[in-house]
């Protein structure tokens, strides 16, 4: 198991490496001249050239990439221009490691902005996660145990409807009616958990519901399917044959086994969300990583896009790792092989 984790960690690092390289290539080696984007109006070729040099876009893409990777472990300077550093040292931005780049649109190290958005995205993702797991798994179980009945059909039907509505649609409806029209909850605005947990939750409830709706729907289906599968396993029959009480059979024997694949799926979905729930954040104007990404795209803030893609991919890759390890903990068959 130990070696397994080490091996996986190495694989994760390699994977992130490849991801960063791909992302870098896709966005920087494109037909556009990134330097063109560094000045808004009044771009003259001279300014473009100066900026190209200042941000290192005149270096070969490979060098730019190695600079980027170096920045992950050591400090970088923007602009990396010894002449300017000598003439006006106060104008040099020092980007401490891990430095994910420097946004020439926002004139800030990208890392700082990501730090700002991360708590929002995490709050959103984790809260929604809790809701969808609780709601999804419970109703999935109920549906499975009442298979074929009215309850089952209602739950499955509701799940499918939830699953079929695009999330921006659900989100905008909730926002327009629940928050603005009926004023049942405040219009979402992020309040840090550490400041006021009650307000934090109150403000996030609509985004949570929006995000959870789609996931809950698919978890209902997932749980139900796994539950049906495990409840028809031989070992459930064995448990009954032992005389174990029915609800214990369900909880201890059925759910335990059914939850394993759900944990996997949930881990991966959560990992995916930690990189930003683009649509929900945009609908509710929560400035998490997802909305930052949208803004970065609108402003063609390439360093920001690259960094956000990387961060999001890192979450996915790490979630993969965690899930695999977790699987080993849950399932003894995996643990020992």
């Amino acid at each position, binding site marked *: 198991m130990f070696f397994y984790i080490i091996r996986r960690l190495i694989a994760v690092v390699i994977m992130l490496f490849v991801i960063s390289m791909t992302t870098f290539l896709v966005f920087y080696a494109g037909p556009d001249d990134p330097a063109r984007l560094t000045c808004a109006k009044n771009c003259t070729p001279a300014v473009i050239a100066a900026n190209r040099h200042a941000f290192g876009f005149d270096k070969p893409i490979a060098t730019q990439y190695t600079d980027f990777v170096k920045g992950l472990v050591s400090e970088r300077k923007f602009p990396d221009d010894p002449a300017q550093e000598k003439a006006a040292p106060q104008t040099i931005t020092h980007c401490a490691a891990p430095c994910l780049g420097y946004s020439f649109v926002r004139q800030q190290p990208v890392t700082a902005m990501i730090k700002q958005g991360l708590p929002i995205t995490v709050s959103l993702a984790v809260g929604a996660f809790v809701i969808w797991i609780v709601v999804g798994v419970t109703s999935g179980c109920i549906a499975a145990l009442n298979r074929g009945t009215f309850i089952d059909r209602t739950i499955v039907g509701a799940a499918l409807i939830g699953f079929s509505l695009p999330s921006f649609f659900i989100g905008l409806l909730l926002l327009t009616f629940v928050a603005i029209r009926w004023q049942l909850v405040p219009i979402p605005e992020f309040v840090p958990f550490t400041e006021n947990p009650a307000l934090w939750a109150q403000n996030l409830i609509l985004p949570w519901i929006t995000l959870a709706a789609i996931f809950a729907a698919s978890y209902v289906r997932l749980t139900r399917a796994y539950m049906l599968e495990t409840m028809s396993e031989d*070992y459930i*029959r*064995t448990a009954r044959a*032992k*005389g174990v009480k029915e609800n214990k059979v369900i909880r201890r024997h059925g759910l335990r*086994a059914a939850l394993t694949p759900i944990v996997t799926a949930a881990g991966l979905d959560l990992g995916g969300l930690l990189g930003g729930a683009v649509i929900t954040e945009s609908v509710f104007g929560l400035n998490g990583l997802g909305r930052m990404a949208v803004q970065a795209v609108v402003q063609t803030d390439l360093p920001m896009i690259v960094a956000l893609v990387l961060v999001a991919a890192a979450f996915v890759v790490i979630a993969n790792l965690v899930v695999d390890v977790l699987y080993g903990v849950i399932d003894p068959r995996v643990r020992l092989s």
Partner: protein
Amino acid sequence: MSETTQKPFLEVKDLKVHFPTDDGLVKSVDGLSFNLERGKTIGIVGESGSGKSVTSQAILGLHRRGKAKTSGQIILDGEDLMTIGNEKLRTLRGSKMAMIFQDPLSALHPYYTIGAQIVEAIQVHHDLDKNQARARTIEMLDRVGIPNPQRRVDQYPHEFSGGMRQRAMIAMALVNNPELLIADEPTTALDVTVQAQILDLMRDLQKEFGSAIIMITHDLGVVAEIADDVLVMYGGKAVEYGNVKDVFYAPEHPYTWGLLTSMPRLDRVRKTRLEPVPGNPPSLINVPSGCAFHPRCAFRDQVADDGCRTIVPGLDEARPGHAARCLIPSDKRAQLFADDVKPRL
């Protein structure tokens, strides 16, 4: 069959288990009756799909209410299991009656240790604390011949070999000293060498615990080895029922004959070709009319007017304690067997 007049320990009367499905009503068990004495073993044989497992699960009350229609009587030690209610039945399961399944790997929960699963079986029925239950578990594992039980108790099913798993299943079944043990093909998945070990173990344990055993199997050899009585099932019904020696030496039903003649033997080289039972097992939805076996029966012309196709035979005693479900008169059957079948065995 014993001659005693007192009530038998287990009495199954006219058991029917029907499953309504999309394609029609599956009559998996359709009017099955048999008795079993304390400490005795009954072997149930029959082709795949003849209803053996369904019967055993019906006795334990494992069929889900909505999905199976069950009727008849199952009287265990004077109590009718069909009417005593779920909760009472549950308390009997695993304590008074227990079951061993065919495939021990899938019948054991992959996420719990062998020990935990046996401890659970104990604690469901006894008010023992963890340590006591564990001690009892280790003792039981030792008893069924698992070497090194202190260590093995904390291992998971997948760390056991096939034979060891089946021993663990047996330990789990016997841990509460059940008076009735149902073994559903406990050795089919195992090698003959391991089968010999397991059967040996079961015999020993039966002597020790005095349980009655229902042994379900495909293998006539196993029946010959371990059973006192035999029940031959075909299409959800018993076609022959009697003492093991009667059934093997003077079988009454053409299907039993077919089983015997189609089997190659270990103990001698057959002089003739094997005689398969022609055709295929019957559908349980559209059971053939009359005698369910008639489409495959080589002797159906022994009954006049196509009777086999139209008349449903009853399970009649040809001799005391030996019954068969066949329209051919008993004496004629004996003669057919002696003249026609026996030479071919």
